[in-house]
C-alpha cells in the first residue's frame, strides 16, 4: 500500500518551497559483482524523506539496509536508479564531489563510535572542518559549541579512552553536527550502549530533529529504539517491505524520567 503511494510521486524533483523532499530515491539498484555470482543488494528502492523527518530503518541483516545507508551517505554510487539530495542528482557525482557532499551536508554516527584514538574530544569533533578550510580558532570554537549541545561541556580535552561509551557516542554526534548538515545518518548508534544510555542518545536525536529540523536516518535492530522515530521503513531482500509512521511515538525525555538515574561518573568507570 505505501509503495503505491510512493509510485504516485512526481518522477523529477523540481525545487519547490515547503515540503521538497530532502532525500528522493527512485528505483535504486545496487548489484555487487563477485565474479561468478552477482549479489543484488538493492532491488529497486523508491523513497522520499522530508526535511525534519526522523526515520528508523529496520530489517534483518542482508536486507539491504546497510547498502541503502551507504548510498544515501554518498559513500557509494548506485548501479541503477537515481538519488536526489536536496534536489541535486548526486548519483552521477564523481568521488571528489561526493566527498564534498559528505563534508557539507551529511553527518555520520556509527555503532562503534569511530573516534580517532589518542585524540581529544575537541580534535575529533573538528575533524570535518579541517577538510573545508576553516581556520584553527574557528574550528575549536565550533567544536566546543557542538560538544556543549550534546552535553559534554568540560570534557573537551578528554581522549576517547577516558570517556564512557555514551560519552564517546555524544562526541561522535557532535562531530556529525559540526558542519550544520541537512542530514544525519546513524548506523545502529545504540548497538554498543546499555538501555539508559541508548535512551539518552535518542533524546539528543529527538531534540535535534525537533529544534533544528534536522533529518535523521537511523538504522536499528531494536523496535524499542525505532519507537523514538516518527517513521519506520522496513527492508527485506533489497526492497522496502513496509513504510509507515510511528503511531505510539515515545518521547525520550519522558522515558528518561521513568528510568532510575545513573551517576555519569560511575558509569564512566565501568
Amino acid at each position, binding site marked *: 500500500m505505501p509503495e503505491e503511494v510512493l509510485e504516485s510521486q512526481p518522477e523529477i524533483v523540481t525545487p519547490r518551497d515547503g515540503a521538497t523532499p530532502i532525500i528522493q530515491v527512485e528505483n535504486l539498484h545496487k548489484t555487487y559483482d563477485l565474479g561468478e555470482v552477482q549479489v543484488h543488494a538493492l532491488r529497486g528502492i523508491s523513497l522520499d524523506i522530508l526535511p525534519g523527518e526522523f526515520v528508523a530503518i529496520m530489517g534483518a541483516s542482508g536486507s539491504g539496509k546497510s547498502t541503502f545507508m551507504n548510498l544515501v551517505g554518498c559513500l557509494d554510487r548506485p548501479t541503477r536508479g537515481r538519488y536526489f539530495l536536496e534536489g541535486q542528482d548526486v548519483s552521477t557525482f564523481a*568521488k571528489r564531489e561526493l*566527498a*564534498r557532499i559528505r563534508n557539507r551536508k551529511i553527518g*555520520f554516527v556509527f555503532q562503534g563510535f*569511530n573516534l580517532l584514538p589518542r585524540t581529544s574530544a575537541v580534535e575529533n569533533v573538528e575533524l*570535518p572542518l579541517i577538510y573545508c*578550510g576553516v581556520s584553527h580558532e574557528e574550528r575549536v570554537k565550533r567544536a566546543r559549541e557542538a560538544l556543549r549541545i550534546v552535553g559534554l561541556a568540560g570534557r573537551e580535552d578528554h581522549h576517547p579512552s577516558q570517556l564512557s561509551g555514551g560519552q564517546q557516542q555524544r562526541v561522535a554526534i557532535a562531530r556529525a553536527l559540526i558542519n550544520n548538515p541537512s542530514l544525519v545518518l546513524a548506523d545502529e548508534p545504540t548497538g554498543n550502549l546499555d538501555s539508559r544510555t541508548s535512551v539518552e542518545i535518542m533524546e539528543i536525536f529527538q531534540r535535534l530533529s525537533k529544534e533544528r529540523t534536522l533529518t535523521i536516518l537511523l538504522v536499528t535492530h531494536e523496535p524499542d529504539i525505532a519507537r523514538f522515530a516518527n517513521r519506520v521503513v522496513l527492508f527485506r531482500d533489497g526492497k522496502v517491505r513496509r513504510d509507515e509512521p510511528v503511531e505510539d511515538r515515545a518521547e525520550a525525555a519522558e522515558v528518561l524520567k521513568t528510568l532510575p538515574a545513573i551517576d555519569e561518573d560511575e558509569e564512566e568507570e565501568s
Partner: protein
Amino acid sequence: MDLPAVIRVALRALARNKMRTALTMLGIIIGVGAVICTVAIGEGASNQVQEQLRNLGDNIVFVAAGSVSQRGVRMGSSATKTLTLADAKAILQQVPMVSRVSPGVGAQVQVIYGNQNWNTRVRGASPEYLEIRRWPVANGGSFSQHEVDAAANVCLIGQTVVENLFGSEDPVSKTVRIQNLPFRVIGVLASRGQSPFGQDEDDTIIMPFTTVQKKIAGIDWINFIMCSAISADAIHPAEQQIAGLLRQRHRLRADEDDDFIIRSPTDLANVQAQAGRIMTLLLASIASVSLLVGGIGIMNIMLVSVTERTREIGVRMAVGATEQDVQMQFLSEAMVLSLLGGSAGVLLGIAASVGVSSMLQWPTSVPPQAIVIAVLFSAGVGIFFGYYPARKAARLDPIEALRYE
C-alpha cells in the same frame, strides 16, 4: 588542508609511535650522516690539493724551449736556441693576461763548499721568479735587478743543498764554488718539500739568469720562461696568446710544429684534484645506498601505518576527506619523517667528520651546499618511498575501511 595543519597532523601521528618513528628515522640518519661525512673527508682532501696548488705558484704558465727537427731527427726538449730574453720581454708587454715574467736558464752543476760537494740543478732567473713561484726566502735576502744586470756571482740555495753542504752551519754570506768560480750565498730558500709530482723542490740553487748564461752554461739563449697569469681563469687564454706570439716571433709556418712547449702545473694538479673528486663521488654514492635502504624502511613503516589506521582513513573519508587529502596526509608524514631524519643525519655527519678530523688528523670540511643537497635529497626519499603507501591509503574504499577490524 593548509600546510601548517598538514605538518601538525603528521607530527602528531609520528609522535604516537615514538620508538617506531625513531628507528625508522635511524635509517635516514645513518644514510645522510655517511654521505655528509664522506663528502667532508673528500672536500678536506680537495682543499689540501688546492692548498698545494696555491703553493705551486701564482697561476704559472711555463714556457720551455721545445724540440727541433733537423733533417728528420727530432731532438729532445730544450734543444732549441730560439727562445730568447726578447721573447720573455715580448710576452710581458704583449700578452695582457700575463702579469709577471721571468726568463730562466738551467744547468746541472757540482757545488763545493769546504770539503763537501753536491750535484744539483742551478736555475738562472730574474728577481720575479720567486714571486711567480710564491717561494719565500727563509734566511737572508734575494738578488736584485741590479745584480742581474751585473751578472753577479750571488746565489740562493735550497734546504737540501744546505743540509748536504753546510750541515748545521749558517750558509748566509758563505762562499760556495761552482765550476771553480766563487759564489756568495745571499739567502736560503724556504723549504717546499716534494712537488706534487714527487721531485725534491729544495734540491736547487737559484741565481741571476745572466750569471748562469755567461759564467756557467755559456749560452746567450734561455731554456724557459716562467709566467704568471693574472688569474686562474686567465691561464688557458694566456697559454694560447703566448703560443701565438711565440710562433709569430719565431716565424713558424703554419705546417711547422711549435719549437717550444707550454705547460701549466696547475693543469696537472687539477687532474690530481679531479681524481680525488671522482673518489669522493664514488664513496658518497656507496654511502647513499644506505640512504636508499633507509627509504625502504620508511616505505615499510608507512605501509604498516596505513594498515593499522585503515579505520581512521575510513572516518576521515566519511567526514569529507578526498583522496588527495588522505594521500597528502600520508605523504607528508613520510616527508616529515625523512626530513627530520635528514636533519639529524646532517648533524651526525658533521659530528662524525669532526671526529675523523681529530682522531685521524685528516683535514675535513663540510661544504654548505652538501647540507642543502642532503636535506633536499632526504625529502626526495620521503616523497619517493612515501608515495606508494600514501596512494594505497587514498585508494581505500571508505565503506571497507570503516568496516575494517
